[in-house]
């Protein structure tokens, strides 16, 4: 069973008189264990695709199945539940809360997941250990370097053992040395079986993924497995 299935999925925005087809009949399957890169110029619909994949937005038409369940019409609270329990987000701007310590930032998804977990702190430390950031647990984000911040953000993304990690231009704010470290970290997570989708316009970053999905004008125009 595919983890995510898009079937003839469209997203239409109304901007005054104009209607914009951000997604136009997309057909796509993400399998468990996939490490996919979504590439495309701005306006190609890759951000909209990611928002829908990440339960931040719902499609206008078409079918969307997540873990075999139809989810295209679910409400806001249900989408929040999926974001907390099934999705891990990594952003270009890291988006750590400045007033919270690294450990507290990592715990946020557990706080909102509503599962009764007593050992929040322990789980946060396990996640920090996987990204090699245990020694920074008590620091606040402003005390960290860019690469460290992104690693902390990745720890936050994996802390609830999500079905899918979505990364939106995760290396956009990093120097080349840290790009390598972060992408190596993603590769390692993928090797451990984590499903990952990285949205980027950087071919070098996309080269780390096992699968490349190219988009243009709201459609998938190419879907290839790397190295084949």
């Amino acid at each position, binding site marked *: 069973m595919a983890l995510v299935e898009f079937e003839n999925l469209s997203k239409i925005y109304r901007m005054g008189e104009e209607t914009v087809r951000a997604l136009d009949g997309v057909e796509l399957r993400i399998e468990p264990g996939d490490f996919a890169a979504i590439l495309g110029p701005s306006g190609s619909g890759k951000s909209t695709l990611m928002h829908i994949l990440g339960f931040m937005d719902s499609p206008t038409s078409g079918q969307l199945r997540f873990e075999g369940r139809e989810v295209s019409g679910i409400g806001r609270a249900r989408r*929040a539940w999926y974001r907390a329990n099934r999705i891990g987000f990594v952003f270009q701007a890291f988006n750590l809360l400045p007033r919270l310590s690294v450990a507290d930032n990592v715990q*946020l998804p557990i706080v*909102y997941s509503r599962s009764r977990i007593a050992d929040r702190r322990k789980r946060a430390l396990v996640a920090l250990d996987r990204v090699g950031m245990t020694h920074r647990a008590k620091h606040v984000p402003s005390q960290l370097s860019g690469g460290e911040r992104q690693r902390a953000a990745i720890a936050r993304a994996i802390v609830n053992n999500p079905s899918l990690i979505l990364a939106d231009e995760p290396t956009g704010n990093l120097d080349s040395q840290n790009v390598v470290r972060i992408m190596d970290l993603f590769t390692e997570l993928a090797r451990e079986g984590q499903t990952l989708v990285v949205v980027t316009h950087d071919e070098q970053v996309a080269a780390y993924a096992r699968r490349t999905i190219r988009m243009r004008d709201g459609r998938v125009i190419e879907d290839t497995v790397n190295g084949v």
Partner: protein
Amino acid sequence: MINGILTFYSGLLNGLVEVWAHKFRSLLSMMGIILGVAALVAMVGVVRGMIGEVRDYFERTGGITRLQVESREPPDEQSHIAHLSPGMTFRDVEAIQAGGTLIDLIDPEVSLGWRRYTYAGQSEHAPLQGVMPDRRERLQLQMREGRYIGDLDVEWASPVIVLGGWLGDLFFPNGGAVGQKIHVHGQTFRVIGVLENLGGPESRGWFQRQNRICYIPITAAMKRFSGDDRLSNLSVRVAEVAFLDDALAQMENILIQTHRGIEDFAVSTMEEQLEEFRRMERTFTFALGGVAGISLLVGGIGIMNVMLAVINERIREIGVRKAVGARGSDIFIQFLAEAVVISVVGGLIGMMASVGFVVFIREVIDVEQFRIALSPPAMVAGFLFSAVIGIASGIYPAVRAARMNVIDALRYE
């Protein structure tokens, strides 16, 4: 539900962190609440003190069953014969004793002003009044030593004196006053008793004035000091409140005879005073409530304003929290809790400020006049008010935060 409480609790902690992180801004936004609560608690203290004073006076002087006879100008058509009336004299007392069947207590007074008292080379000034035995019951005076003025003292116009507690303390700190001779304005009086201080040793206001007064038989006052039988004051007590109106008519009937038909007196009930007192209480309550209400309202608007600004500053944070799974209700509770923290901390500071206020007012206003007290119920009310204001003013900003779209919030720069 449990989750909501937990979110609210962590929201409170979070709110404290935010308040602490922006100390000056938080203080400014709390100012309205601080002043509102401080004004509320301090004003309740002041008004309580003033009203308590009036209430004490009212109750200690006989309450609603008291009738007071006052001299007044006769009506115009009688002004040419006004001199025929003897005025308010001791004959009024005798007439009421004879015919006032609805009256159970007569308390006339010849007020002799402040006089000089001398004992064993020591001199003090204190008010002197000539009274009858009923004075003791009307004011519920307690004897510390000896006895009060009796019927025979009045009949014989005996040169005896009952000292007020204040003078008793000065002349006879170790007791033993009874039987001693003291001089009052050059005349010798034998001490027959010393009164207990009313309102305790630290008495203020009406009690303090009362504790200075010394009493001699009314007849002695007339013979030895005033030289005629005019009264300064005349109060009576009605046996039953139910007969108040009848007693009033009876009094007027008796007095119109002793005054030879001339209406140069008025019998008034305490109902008017009571009504006046209640009106004062109402006025103060409304004025107080208005002032406190307006400042708390302004405080609430201040908090709402700050919360709206805070939310604008933290749109990105709202987006991040929602992206990692926060529901609208989580965000709502978080910001509501923060508003509550601001107002409750403001309320607590306001309560502390009110203590300072009250101490300050005590210093500035003559302590003799008012007993200003911090009232715990007013403090609790002020605190609860501040919490309610926090919730009320936090709702709208919190709803706005909760409704924010996650994608737009994340994109916000």
